[in-house]
């Protein structure tokens, strides 16, 4: 089985404190994988290790078969990501931000199309400094998809969006996944949202993926739905470094 994303025995410590420990994750090509966990559980840390922004203390991880430590530039070229609160070149327009991003990636893409997909086509020459929180979040998604990556790694991509924006993003992610075969790994605290988007859900607690489930199956064992399931898995508590 060829995995789009795989991690085995992944660990990461910060100042001697182990945040991620023995974390194993396998995401097939074409999957939408929802990554859940409490604040500080280490979701962002895992994402950063997958992108090569952090070096694992132990274990190994690969994206598209490429080693996350040694082949990080190639991974960055073939993935789109949104990590933490997105930052932009504030004095430039949305289109200019995407053009610069493409230039750094040395990739071909259509900024206008990406902006249209996230509903920012009308922003014209308006500098990003004047964008609302929701607009910035949508621009971050546009930046992640503008070069048509094979894998999308999105850390809370619907943060700050209104219900219509959330709906639009969900439709976009599903479209990218179904029509273009893009593998998506996304985290969110909006359980309902993840349940509706993901084909598989993993819950990170105590530094490792403690449970994985098909969202379609949850109702059978948990009449309370996703929330009841999630609360049971993380029930023992414990937080760490995000």
């Amino acid at each position, binding site marked *: 089985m060829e995995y789009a994303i795989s991690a085995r025995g992944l660990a990461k410590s910060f100042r001697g404190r182990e945040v991620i420990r023995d974390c194993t994750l396998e995401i097939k090509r074409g999957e939408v994988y929802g990554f859940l966990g409490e604040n500080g559980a280490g979701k962002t840390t895992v994402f*950063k290790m997958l*992108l090569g*922004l*952090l*070096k694992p203390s132990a274990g190994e991880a690969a994206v598209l078969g490429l080693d996350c430590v040694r082949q*990080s*530039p*190639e*991974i*960055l*070229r073939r993935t789109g*990501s949104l*990590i*933490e*609160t*997105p*930052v932009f*070149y504030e*004095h*430039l327009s949305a289109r*200019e931000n995407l053009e*610069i991003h493409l*230039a*750094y*990636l*040395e990739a071909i893409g259509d900024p206008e199309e990406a902006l249209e997909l996230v509903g920012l086509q009308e922003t014209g020459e308006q500098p990003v400094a004047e964008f609302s929180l929701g607009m910035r979040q949508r621009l971050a998604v546009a930046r992640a998809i503008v070069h048509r990556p094979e894998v999308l790694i999105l850390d809370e991509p619907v943060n700050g969006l209104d219900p219509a924006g959330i709906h639009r993003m969900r439709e976009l992610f599903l479209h990218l996944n179904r029509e273009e075969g893009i593998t998506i790994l996304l985290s969110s605290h909006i359980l309902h949202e993840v349940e509706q988007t993901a084909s598989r859900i993993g819950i990170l607690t105590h530094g490792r993926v403690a449970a994985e489930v098909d969202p379609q199956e949850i109702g059978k064992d948990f009449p309370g739905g996703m929330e009841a399931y999630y609360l049971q898995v993380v029930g023992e508590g414990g937080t760490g470094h995000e």
Partner: protein
Amino acid sequence: MNKLTALELRRTSLRPYRIAALSIFPVMLGLLYLLASLPRWEPYSKDLDVLLDRDGVTGIVCVLCVFAFAMVFAAMAAKCVVEEYSGKRAVLLFSYPVSRRKILGAKLWLVFGYTVLSALTCGGAVLGIFFLTEWVFPLCPGALAAGTVVSVFLRLLWSALLAGVLGLIALWFGFRKKSVTATLTAGVILSLIACQVMSVTVGRPISWLVLLVVAAVPAALCAAGLFREVEKMEV
């Protein structure tokens, strides 16, 4: 590298630094004429001996040029380098599949190049205007010699380079602390020390060249340290 520098240029707003350079110009010009006029108002003051010839007057202006443009470098580097490698901005920077060394190199090249060119343009314009008026209505005694003009412009070149070199050292301090304030403070302290040395050696231009070479050694080490630092950074 050229492409990366062009990208840096495109995504960096140079407006504040252009305003700074444009503001420095009238101050330097006014100061130059003020210094050149002082001996006429106080003809017997021994303290003004250094201002009795064009070398002395223009030398003081070059000293001010070092201070002003070292501060421009520090401010620009604080924004383009220190802030970019701090917190969430660093995530964006490291998300590009480009060698970290090359990106930092492009940034340093842009800041150094912009500062030195601004100093040369601003200082060159000030000195150009001064020499033009000296040729027609001289304030300083004696005829204006071509050798003086060449020597003064050479000193301006050293001063512009020194401003960049001092700014680079200041950046190293600021980068280690990931602090804009530390960058600016280091810039002030270093340029004040350099300006002090320059002002007591105004009459010996070669000593400025020595100062430049001496300052370039730690600056090169600082640049190497910055490259090492970004290579091992985790965000």
